[in-house]
């Protein structure tokens, strides 16, 4: 794999150029441009069906857009499959939970880091040598960095599908983090959470974005305007596949087109405050 130079803070790490994606006659994305700078929280908002999730799927490779280019750290990644992109450093969580329901929390999270394990079938099957070393290193990373960060010590041995929704969302974030991504796509991480859980989740996102250990660039799809406006560095607004504006939250919240298309005439901050 060709390694690209490290991207510095503030430089563009992920770039979408004129992305077009249609399903039959439905134009889900038309000429969407996005520049995500390293170290930022870049939010994507828009009404239902605006194409937010399609955009996420294009970035992580579940969909391949008909037109346009995607660059990650200067490298064109259009043709790459999702797991290749994950190896490059693009992690994601899903709007609808995609956990392994029957497995424990710890196993779910560990699964996220498997992509980095180098040992082969042979040593894996007898759990010796390299496998053992790798597993112990991974364990330390997961326990000390992820479980501690997300405060899920008390549920680490519980089966995922038995957990309350809010905790499952946290576990999903944990699994995405285990991938050690540089960019993380968060698809509605607050949906279906109560106020307290939303506050927790917002804190976790800020933590992984700002904490020296992580410094992950976040692309956040979210409906909760309070959260988006509070924590984002930039906001992109989509409406029926068209970009309305891409700018800092203050600018976005005052844009008349945004208010008309998405927010109605209501005050921006009415959501969950």
């Amino acid at each position: 794999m060709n390694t690209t130079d490290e991207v510095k803070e503030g430089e563009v790490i992920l770039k979408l150029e004129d992305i077009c994606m249609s399903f039959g006659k439905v134009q889900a994305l038309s000429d969407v441009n996005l520049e995500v700078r390293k170290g930022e929280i870049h939010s994507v908002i828009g009404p239902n069906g605006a194409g937010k999730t399609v955009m996420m799927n294009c970035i992580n490779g579940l969909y391949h857009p008909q037109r346009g280019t995607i660059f990650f750290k200067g490298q064109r990644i259009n043709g790459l499959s999702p797991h290749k992109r994950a190896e490059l450093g693009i992690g994601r969580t899903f709007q609808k939970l995609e956990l392994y329901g029957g497995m424990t929390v710890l196993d779910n999270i560990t699964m996220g880091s498997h992509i980095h394990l180098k040992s082969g079938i042979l040593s894996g099957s007898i759990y010796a040598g390299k496998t053992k070393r790798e597993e112990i290193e991974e364990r330390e990373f997961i326990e000390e960095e992820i479980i501690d960060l997300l405060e899920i010590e008390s549920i680490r041995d519980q089966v995922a599908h038995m957990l309350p929704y809010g905790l499952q969302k946290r576990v999903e974030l944990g699994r995405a983090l285990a991938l050690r991504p540089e960019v993380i796509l968060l698809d509605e991480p607050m949906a279906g959470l109560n106020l307290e859980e939303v506050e927790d989740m917002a804190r976790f996102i800020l933590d992984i974005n700002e904490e020296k250990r992580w410094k992950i660039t976040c692309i956040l799809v979210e409906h909760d305007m309070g959260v988006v406006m509070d924590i984002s560095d930039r906001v992109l607004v989509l409406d029926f596949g068209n970009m309305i504006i891409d700018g800092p939250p203050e600018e976005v919240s005052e844009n008349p087109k945004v208010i008309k298309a998405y927010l109605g005439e209501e005050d921006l901050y009415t959501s969950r405050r």
Partner: protein
Amino acid sequence: MREETIEITKDLTIPQLFYKQCKKYGNEKVAIREKEFGIWIPYTWQDYFDNVKYLSLGMVSLGLKRGDKVAMIGDNRPEGIWAEMAAMCVGAIPVWLFQDCMMEEVRYIVDHSDSRFFVGETQEEVDKALGIMSECPKLEYIIWDDPKGMRRYDQKFLMSIKKVQKLGRELDQKEPMLFEQMINEGHGEDICLLFYTSGTTALPKGALLTHYNMLSMGQNLMAVDPCYDTDDFVSYLPFAWIGEQMMSISCGLQIGYTLNFPEEPEVAQHNIREIGPHVMFAAPRLYEGLTRQVQVKYLDSAWIKRKAYEVATKIGYYVADLKFERKPVPWYWKALNYFAYVIVQKKLKDHLGMSRLRHAYTGGAAMGPDHFRFFHALGVNLKQIYGQTEIAGISVVHRDGDIKFDTVGTPLPETEVKITEDGEIISKGPSVFQGYYKMEEETKKALKDGWLYSGDTGFIDEDGHLVVFDRSKDVMVLNDGRPFAPQYLESRLKFSPYIQDAWVIGDKAPYVTAVMCIDYSVVGKWADEHKINYTSYPELSQHPEVYNLIQRQIEEANKGLPDPARIHKFANLFKAFDADDDELTRTSKLRRGFMAQRYKDIIEALYMDTGIVHLDMTITYEDGRVQPIKTDLRVQQIDA
């Protein structure tokens, strides 16, 4: 390893003892264990020593001096006990705060104690300290140990424990003998701890305890129930509670057993099971919780398990009662008891983390005989103790084989307990405290000629056991003069798994009534099984079926009681009692006076025939937010 016992004299200080123990065990033995990142991480006595030493010197280089106060707050963790020991080594006086203290309480105690340093755990505690800093001019430094969330705090007076320890190392290089020198300067009769009592009625009072107070207490307790340096103890109750200090410092440091700290408070029960402690001391509430847990699991289990449990407990109760009556246990009952042990009790004790338990103590509040019998039937050596912060923890305890569940036992060695003419319990001994900090009046009331006046009433029975009535202000009479004991009734009610808390009312009233708090999880589960829909605690508590369920529990508790003590009417409260609403003290005692004020509408309704009460009041959340609440409560009559 017990050949050399350390003599406790008036010259010995806790830091000196700490120094001796660290030198004795060095790297050979584990002093502290903490579960972190999913595994138990050991710290030897040498690690313990190094951490305390550099932290202590670091505090000195920040300007901490002998006699200064250091406020401390946080969950139980090694850093907490290091900080405490470090402050003591300097000759400073630690002041522990309860982890869940609200800002106002923190402010009062930090201000009143004249604390110059504040040691917190995480961002949460640091925020509390920052919030009160402007009102506490004497506070100079805030020290924290968990970096999470601290990245944006850059004030000069904020410092991590690691950084303070680094300062300590630098000082150590300049003055290598300073630490030893500081330790040697101390004297056993210096103040070592300033302990704020929870106070069921008034503002917290700061009790001053000396090194000798603390150490003599531990020595006398262990003269009754010896501990060994191979023992394990799990420290998870607040350090701000004297009982925990007594086990961790008075006994733990003296004998050198291992302190274990759970990962998080939520997993404490699980961690206890992993450790299997040899001794434990907890407030009745914890034992009540364990009892409830067993009862719920019992209700939940399959037919065959239920039967096995029923048989085993029947045997257990029979044998326990024989022991209580101090009658010999015949060999066939012993055999049956062994059978019960094999089929049920062994497993059950393991699940409760009690397999290796030699002594379990309960104290701080009254515990009902039902709970007491329950644990003895299980083969757990549970003992009542009696004492107060003012006597460095405890003064009276049950002896092995001489346990009566309506008494609190006999005095510790070197301790005298007497009853005054008014029936007040007074005690004298080496552990009696030095007075309240900055409260002359109160000190005079509590200390007379070396006797500690407790404010509790009681008597000494024919076997020399002390019997404690409820706090004297809590003994109540009906309006026709017939007496009843509300705490006894409450503990009886709480034996039902469905009832989390009860508050019995009836002082100078025609009959006894009660306000009940249902146990949300247990009643919730019951509701699920009975196809009752609910969305929240308030809704569930007011459901007619739930009222009937609670009524059945009360009727059960009423059985066998004399008429004046029976509960005639009750109401389910829409919430559980909470220390944040000032309804309980931080050690979970009911604050009756306050409650009578707060819920006077409910009390009124309990003595009228309206059957319903409208409430309009506020509740307080843990973060200090206040919310108004409007609701209706129903009053239900119980046919006597």
